[in-house]
């Protein structure tokens, strides 16, 4: 089986898992869910690291570094702000 076909399998199955997981989440948590999911989409950071890490230089590296900056903002900011919100949902006893 080619790598592309494999990729499509992963994509389709992950979409199903995503649908099933998120369908049941109560509206109260929709905002933190969205910002948490958003942070996960920053996974593209590992792609950016691979691009820069090859050290090809020139435009490739420049674009890659910009991608690292963008993706890191997404990842770090996303997880932190989600955590900040979720703390507010904790019951204060």
């Amino acid at each position, binding site marked *: 089986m080619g*790598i*592309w076909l494999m*990729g499509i399998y*992963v994509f*389709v199955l*992950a*979409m199903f*898992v*995503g649908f099933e*997981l998120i369908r049941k*989440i109560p*509206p*109260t*948590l*929709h*905002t*933190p*869910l*969205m*910002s*948490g*999911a*958003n*942070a996960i*989409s*920053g*996974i*593209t*950071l*590992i*792609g*950016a690291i*691979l*691009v*820069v*890490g*090859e*050290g090809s230089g020139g435009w*490739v590296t420049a*674009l*890659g570094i*910009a991608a*690292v*900056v*963008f*993706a*890191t*903002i*997404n990842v*770090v*900011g*996303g*997880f*932190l*702000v989600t*955590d*900040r919100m*979720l703390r*507010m*949902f904790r019951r204060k006893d």
Partner: protein
Amino acid sequence: MPPMLLELAYILSAFLFILGLKRLGSPATAPAGNSMAAAAMLIAVVATLLDRQVVSYAGIAGGIVGGAIVGTILARRVQMTAMPQLVAVFNGFGGGASALVASAELIRQTGMEPGIAGGIAAGVGILVGTVTFSGSVIAWGKLQGVITQRPVLFPLQRVVSFLLFAALVAGVILLAAGPVDPLLVLAMAGAALLLGILLVVPIGGADMPVVVSLLNSYSGLAASAAGFVLGNALLILAGALVGAAGLILTQLMCRAMNRSLANVAFGAFGGVDTTVGQDGPARTARSTTAEEAAPLLGHASRVAIIPGYGLAVAQAQHEVKKLVSNLEERGVEVYFAIHPVAGRMPGHMNVLLAEADIPYELLLDLDDANDQMPRTDVAIVVGANDVVNPEARNPASAIAGMPIVEVDRATTVVVIKRSLSTGFAGIDNPLFYKNRTMMLFADAKVAMADLAREVREV
């Protein structure tokens, strides 16, 4: 790190992402779920840094430090009312990063053949990622008030958007067909930037929950496309999870307004002044004061509060909390009826009320709240309009069929609003003129503080 170990780290990471998302599903486990997803990300990043292909670290280190500083500052400083803007910005950065990764991969292969699958994946990555980026910038501008919240329309807008999209599809085919030309990559990025702007400017402010959800989905799909470009299963998987999450929320938001996605995207809702029912006999609304309304609340056994975006704008969450505490001290049962599109993103109102320490058990969703409404003595509408408009039951209305909080089934309704003006949908609200409705014309924050004080003196 040997390739086998790297793959194992990625599998562990994928496992933790899924488990983390699952735990985000209940308030008790959600903080742990978020930490789990963050740990998954850390594992994936560290494993990638140890990958054999990675030989140059300076650029990566600089980029990560810079991005982490900016991300931390943004996350710490944001006010809860501005959360939709921040999520839009983060979506934009995520989508932009995926587009940059796809572009860089292509440019690295300048003059070479990326192949059909490789060309399509990279082209789609650039297209979706860049549209996410520029669309999110416009969404941020609208939410922040930098750009008008009204739909921006010009002649042939849809034609131009369609032509741009067709040109981009042609670009994807060219990428798949022949050797990589960096100029083509640049042209596609430019066209996609423009397309993202054109797709979001015609959408009105009240429809932002749909836009933010959809851009969230796109940022995930762009990451998946980048995963196909690099042949990386973890990127494909995590991106698809996010893509699915965003699509579900988009669907929920559309359903909450009884509108199709196409109608939200192209309907320019709230742009035209639809003057329905303006020709009838002059109607009078009954005006009231906090002193007059307080005894009603104080002697009620059950009170509903229906918050809208106006409450967030007025920053009245803490005053609402005071009113709730004072009512509960008197033995009045209070609950909140939260319409899915009450805020500017899915679940926004719940976060704002949580910030004011209002327990989430008091927040009822639309169906539960409507079940309670006939047994409710007073419904207080604060800063909301379209979501309580009984016109939604009128098949001829512009908001026909939109699920509403049925406050007119409560014994008495108190509407706190600055004037009788229409909401985002631009249609008149007959609720304001009903016999059992009292209008408290005031700023939400002032009115809530006054009510909280007066209730103590009943």
